């Protein structure tokens, strides 16, 4: 790994998906948003949690798809199987769980006390004799498809998902599944925020490198130059339309290294969190990198429709965006690491990294609301995309194909 002949930076993109302007209606039209709800949020595999957070039988989490009003309970059964159900009691429809996470012996409705086993069967209805002809077998909680990839739990609200999760995430492959599924990854920190912007604008901001030099001029500009980001797309993929790789500049003196950065770097890897090749490979990272390159920092992938997954040597960053309406969304970011800080130096190092990355993210998020307002008021009707922004074009194509109920070329 890390061969010297790889030093030439990769091409930054192509125009293979066309060069036309893209209309902006898809970000503001309520009609289009209805199509997204129906064809995207009800049919895509959605990332809802981490399997290792539901270790014990009875561990559950509650995942809300706000815009659909759908609440999903994902629960670990006594047989260790993960199951997902609509969070809806089959007596008169009350929600069964209200907290984000918890552990329970059974799913007990607090309206009249119907209780359901961890596999969704109705096991007790108080005073069952009061009902005319109650058949418990007919009152099973309504199931939702659930599967695990890379240690992350995904659900799919379709009655019959068109693709298995493995097929959906195909370009990422088994090496990824194993590496991300490594049980040592644990959640370190994260944030969420609400935005008055279409959900896709928060995704768009993370899948091109063209913005880096300008947007991040007061933070990381120079250390990750826009010219060192390679854009790519997977036209045959259903669930992973595109991605970006980022590299350090060949001239390592670019960017501002503050005394704090340099000091914190003595105690660990900070915002550009990178392990040596050998450590990375030993932790199962072999075969994960798209590029085998000494200046490589991260790959990111769009997991359609709403996840941007950053993979680094030693750090995973997941950004999730869920719509509330066409004009409002919730954005979340979560960090996973394989090590917990064990000394003050390491804490200091993490703090520096967390703050640096927080500030960078705040810049990424800054433009979305202004763009949305401009789209909405009609000031802008079309956008221009260059080679480096080709992932947005791939995203857009995938989006249109999804709302038209279209199959993806070459998909299983």
């Amino acid at each position, binding site marked *: 790994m890390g061969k010297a002949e790889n030093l030439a930076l990769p091409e930054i993109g192509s125009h293979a998906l066309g060069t036309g302007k893209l209309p902006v209606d898809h970000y503001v039209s309520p009609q289009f948003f209805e199509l997204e709800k129906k064809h995207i949020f009800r049919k895509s595999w959605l990332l809802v949690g981490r399997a290792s957070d539901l270790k014990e039988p009875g561990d559950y989490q509650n995942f809300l798809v706000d815009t659909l009003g759908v609440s999903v309970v994902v629960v670990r059964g006594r047989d260790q199987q993960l199951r997902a159900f609509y969070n809806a009691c089959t007596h008169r429809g009350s929600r069964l769980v209200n907290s984000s996470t918890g552990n329970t012996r059974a799913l007990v409705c607090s309206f009249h006390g119907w209780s359901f086993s961890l596999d969704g069967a109705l096991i007790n209805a108080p005073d069952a004799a009061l009902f005319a002809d109650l058949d418990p077998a007919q009152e099973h909680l309504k199931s939702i498809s659930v599967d695990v990839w890379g240690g992350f739990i995904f659900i799919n609200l379709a009655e019959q998902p068109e693709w298995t999760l493995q097929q959906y995430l195909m370009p990422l492959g088994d090496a990824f599944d194993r590496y991300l599924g490594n049980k040592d990854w644990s959640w370190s920190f994260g944030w969420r925020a609400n935005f008055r912007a279409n959900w896709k604008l928060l995704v768009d901001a993370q899948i091109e490198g063209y913005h880096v030099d300008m947007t991040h001029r007061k933070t990381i500009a120079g250390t990750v130059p826009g010219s060192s980001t390679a854009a790519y797309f997977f036209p045959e993929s259903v669930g992973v339309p595109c991605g970006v790789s980022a590299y350090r500049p060949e001239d390592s003196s670019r960017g*501002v290294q503050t005394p704090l950065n340099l*000091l*914190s770097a003595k105690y660990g890897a900070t915002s550009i969190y990178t392990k040596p090749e050998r450590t990375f490979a030993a932790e199962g990272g072999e075969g994960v990198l798209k590029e085998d390159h000494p200046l490589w920092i991260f790959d990111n992938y769009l997991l359609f429709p709403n996840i941007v997954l950053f993979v680094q040597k030693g750090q995973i960053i997941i950004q999730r965006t869920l719509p509330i309406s066409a004009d409002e969304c919730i954005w979340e970011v979560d960090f996973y690491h394989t090590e917990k800080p064990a*000394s*003050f130096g390491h*804490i200091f190092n993490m703090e520096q990294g967390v*703050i640096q990355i927080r500030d960078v993210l705040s*810049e990424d998020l*800054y433009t979305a609301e202004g763009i949305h307002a401009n789209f909405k008021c009609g000031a802008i009707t079309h956008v221009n995309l260059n080679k480096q922004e080709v992932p947005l074009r791939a995203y857009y194509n995938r989006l249109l194909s999804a709302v038209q109920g279209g199959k993806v070329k070459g998909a299983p």
Partner: protein
Amino acid sequence: MSTAIPRPELSALEAHIAAWGLPTTEHRLSKRLSSSMDEVRAFYDAMLPKLPEVIDYLNQFPLDGIPKNDNPLVWATLAMCEVDNAVNKWNRVVLDTGIDIRRMIPKTSFSDRGYE
């Protein structure tokens, strides 16, 4: 095992440590945002020369063995991370090219959606 590293002499810094030694990142962020650039710079300039020594001192303890009396020192040291960009990159207390950081609500777990 090398000999214990004594606590550095910090009497000139105690006022800064008291002012900036706040327990969470969010507290330290608020402190930066409500301070003047002169105050931020005074803290930074006073603390920076002592920082390597302070970190070496704190770093010698296991995490649960750091003397409780040193909590303000721990937090003030971490506050240096919070003022770093203000001093070295922006020359102002607010990053005016980003959203207000206070809109980013810290999560407690991957599944935390704030509807507990």
